[in-house]
């Protein structure tokens, strides 16, 4: 039972907004000690864990090329491009991206998107540009821009999560067959698991897609409110 205190350390650490690195470090050491690992074994666990999980960090290798493109105006060009598609609102654009992300992930093309590869350089600027057009071409207020960017990232993640499991050679499917087949001496086929992921994928598209289409209305209201605010401010300013 006492090893569960390690889980408690994590919950408390995040709940009290401590630095996440320290939370992870303290929780790891505490759980190791409570689980009766020796200090040397704990160090070994940290080292082995780091060595075998390096692939999580390798997206950093794409940063130089993304940085090079950004200093040459990639985000600005993305805005120009979307500016030409007159009818595409933020919500419709993101719903379109959701469909693309789910479909490509279902065919095993998970790395086609992602926060570093596509959201920062292309998707978020395009979604912002669509919102700016609705705002009469003026820059977005801080709050609205944060919301558009958050939704750009969210759409990418939701599309990936509820698309990739329809592909049979993905990590989670292999984890399921590996764990179940070896632990319970049975035989699950990756293909049948992938097919069972389809109903959830359809639900995800309908639910998140509907939310994105409603986002346009929310953004319009917030933009109208902030324009009214700045208009009153301007009026007060001139009345002085």
């Amino acid at each position: 039972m006492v090893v569960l205190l390690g889980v408690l350390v994590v919950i408390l650490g995040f709940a009290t907004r401590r630095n996440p690195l320290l939370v992870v470090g303290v929780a790891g050491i505490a759980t190791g000690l409570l689980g009766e690992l020796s200090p040397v074994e704990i160090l070994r666990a940290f080292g082995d864990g780091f060595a075998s999980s390096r692939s999580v960090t390798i997206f950093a290798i794409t940063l130089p090329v993304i940085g090079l493109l950004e200093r040459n105006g990639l985000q600005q060009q993305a805005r120009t491009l979307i500016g030409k598609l007159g009818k595409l609102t933020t919500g419709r654009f993101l719903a379109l991206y959701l469909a693309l992300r789910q479909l490509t992930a279902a065919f095993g093309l998970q790395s086609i998107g992602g926060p570093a590869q596509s959201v920062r350089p292309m998707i978020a600027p395009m979604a912002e540009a669509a919102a700016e057009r609705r705002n009469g071409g003026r820059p977005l207020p801080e709050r609205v821009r944060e919301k558009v960017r958050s939704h750009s990232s969210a759409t990418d993640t939701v599309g990936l999560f509820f698309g990739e499991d329809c592909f049979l050679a993905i990590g989670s499917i292999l984890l399921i067959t590996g764990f179940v087949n070896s632990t319970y001496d049975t035989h699950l086929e990756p293909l049948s698991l992938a097919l069972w992921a389809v109903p959830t994928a359809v639900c995800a598209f309908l639910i998140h897609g509907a939310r994105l289409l409603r986002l346009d209305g929310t953004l319009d209201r917030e933009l109208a409110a902030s324009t009214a605010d700045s208009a009153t401010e301007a009026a007060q300013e001139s009345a002085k």
Partner: protein
Amino acid sequence: MIKSEWFFWLVGAAFLIMALQMTVDRSNPRRWGSAAFWGLLGICFVYSTWVVDKSLPAEPLGVAVLAMICLGGFEFTGKGVPRTTNERERTELAARWGNKLFIPALTIPLVAVLCSAVLDKWSIGGEPVLEDGSETILGLGIGAIIALGVGMWVLHERRPTVPVHAGRSLLESMGWALLLPQLLAVLGSIFQAAGVGTQVGKITEQVLPDGQRLAAVALYCVGMAVFTIIMGNAFAAFPVMTAAVGWPVLVEQMDGNAAAVMAVGMLAGFCGTLVTPMAANFNLVPAALLELKDQYGPIKAQAPTAAAMLGCNIAIIYLFAF
């Protein structure tokens, strides 16, 4: 054969070069702490090769990981003023290059896909060109390198220092958040070694009401989501909840369709991933990359979808798996 370890060395070397540049960047108020953090990370990336094949001890790597946790955790890292173009220059450059700018950006996914779909099946003299099981990782790496070449060619950029500086600015603006996903994976493996999974299984047995199908399905799915929220990773929650409820109760006792229960159960875990800061690579890293003031912005945008999807997953198992 192209090995994935070579690629890890390249990533390590990139971190080391950027760390060296940081030591001479006087615009960064914490340049020594930043250089130590990224330099240590670069060394660890290379040293790990011999930890994986068990020819060097893992303990020194553990010490280095704790040192990085302290450097980042006690805020010894900082960022310099990037030497880059301003908004007006970027607009002019965008007008000059036009849609050519998208070519290098789209090269990365295109090459990654080619590697995992086509190159994956190639072999020379009976040996596969790409190391088995590493096609996706190598695809991303090869894609990034080719895209860098294409980008420099398209943009007539001859100085290799320009993309390195640009990449370093992005690295500095993300800061230690870049390392968090990997550390959470480390924490998961420590939890496993210390026996956290077995304990949760015991508790689950005590709370589960006998023979109530909907309660059992809900417990499995909600348990997957809750455990994922705590651990930040549905892969870590899956063995715990499946051993506790999924297999013994839903499949054996209630005769559920194993493929349906397991596949949808994993997706219920993903609903947890959408709402937890512990899943840093999906939630906090994008917030840092997009320079959001509210680091929980993506989580807030995802939460309603996650809640609805959890309900859908419970319904799918309850209605179709028995």
